[in-house]
């Protein structure tokens, strides 16, 4: 295969990692809202951990972006 089209396909495949991060974010915020609904007074303590977790999950998706950049440099 030609290297340029192959690198484009690879960059697209690297973007599929976003799906996992989407599942993770949805699961986490859903669970967090569930927890707040059960115990509204704990919202202040829990929301801190929710935001830290959100940043961690987002970073996983961004590793895909880094991979795409690496492939773009090679293509």
């Amino acid at each position: 295969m030609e290297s340029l089209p192959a690198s484009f396909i690879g960059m697209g495949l690297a973007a599929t990692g976003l799906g996992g991060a989407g599942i993770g974010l949805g699961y986490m915020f859903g669970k967090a809202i569930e927890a707040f609904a059960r115990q509204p007074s704990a919202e202040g303590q829990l929301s801190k951990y929710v935001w830290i977790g959100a940043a961690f999950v987002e970073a996983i998706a961004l590793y895909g972006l880094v991979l795409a950049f690496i492939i773009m440099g090679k293509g």
Partner: protein
Amino acid sequence: MNFSFVAEAYAETAQTVATTAPKMDPLHHFQVINYLKITPFGFDMSISNSVLWMWIVVGVVYGLFRLAMRNPTLVPGRLQSVAEAGYLFVQGMIHDIIGPSGKKFFPAIFTLFFFVLFSNWTGLIPGSFTVTSQLIVTGTLALIIFALSIVLGAYHHGWKFLGFFVPHGLPPALLPLMVPIEIISFLARPVSLSVRLFANMTAGHTVLGVLFFFTATLTWAVAWLPFGFTVVFTAMEIFIGFIQAYIFTILTCVYINDSIHMH
């Protein structure tokens, strides 16, 4: 009648549009440009825009705290409240994670937090350079923290620090499986620490670059849409810049705590 001149004019217009149309280049503002070439003994110590903006960040943080604590009062004014809130924030973080023995790391962690935070935020000024969008910068910071955690572990525990790789309460049959996993996860720490910050900054600014490109090149009838998104995304970037600086610092605290107190 001969209408070929229409086709010719059309082709000519198409060609001019193709050659003069603005080209999307969202990675342009991550380019490191050397202003002053300094290479003593083969080492590249050139003054680039990255170096310049690092100095600006250090100057801004230093100036802010100098100005805030110029004549401190018992009842703080506005700027002094900001400085004290930052101090208490980092102090609380160290106390929660490392405990009282983390007090001697306060100056280093405080400096690290405000350097990363202001690098992230000054990068949002149009025309500026985001220092933390370079893997070499975040990688250097992460490797310094990694080396510090190893040295601290060796200093506090000596050879017993190798017990860090053996989880407690594990059946001996599982040791050949778990010890390599623990070693790999330990070695992956500086990689994940540096790539997380670098990728967040690069991705956010790339998205902003794409949106600004659409705003600048589309007609006004549709340009309001990407323009509105740039406003939302800039707010989002301010938030992400803070969260990433917070995570970078909190993980530094966790690594130092692991070295001092082991599991």
